[in-house]
């Protein structure tokens, strides 16, 4: 396992390993970060889509903010935006990824994620959502 999650601040999307993450400042422990990293990497490699996970506040209207964040990505990207404070999650697909992931598949993943989030399991919900989306999209 690579062990680090590439992290980007909103509006300045970066990629690449950042080893200084997960030492107590962020919301996730190093083990939780490793789980998210594994799920992100595996689902992206398996499907050929670019999955990314945003965790933080979304300005109302939250859907519009999530879509604005998505517009910084590429056509084959899938954005999972989670706002734990507002108890809202959005899955956004683009022109290419929407063909692989119909809205019904996204809704199913969102349903499973909601169940985990309502139990307070943020990491589990994100990992479950990524796996379900990757399974729905299938291998390329």
């Amino acid at each position, binding site marked *: 396992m690579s062990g680090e999650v590439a992290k980007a601040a909103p*509006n300045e999307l970066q990629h690449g390993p950042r080893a200084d993450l997960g030492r107590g400042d962020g919301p996730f422990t190093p083990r939780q970060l490793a789980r998210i990293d594994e799920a992100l990497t595996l689902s992206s490699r398996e499907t050929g889509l670019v999955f990314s996970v945003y965790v933080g506040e979304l300005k109302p209207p939250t859907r519009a903010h999530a879509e604005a964040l998505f517009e910084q990505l590429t056509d084959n990207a899938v954005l999972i935006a989670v706002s734990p404070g507002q108890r809202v999650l959005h899955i956004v697909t683009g022109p290419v990824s929407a063909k692989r992931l119909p809205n019904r598949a996204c809704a199913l993943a969102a349903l499973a994620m909601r169940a985990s989030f309502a139990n307070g399991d943020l990491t589990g919900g994100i990992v479950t959502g990524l796996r379900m989306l990757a399974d729905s999209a299938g291998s390329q």
Partner: protein
Amino acid sequence: MSIVQTLLVFVGIPAGIIAIIYVAVYGKSMVRQPNRYRPGRPWEYAASWYVPHPDAVVDSGAPSPSGTTPSTTAVGGASGEW
């Protein structure tokens, strides 16, 4: 029994037992918080955006570096609240 002995037996021992039970119950969550999110509590962490490692992305669809203009539009997806 002197006053010191009385205090030790009737105050010190109960206080010690209470402290042991308190540490046994709350100690783990005082030291580290493996799951810091509780539904309904405010979320005070800075926003973070996790993307896969570039070498995991097969084709050239890697997220563009910072400073680029919007490159795609949202087509579909789903939403949820909990």
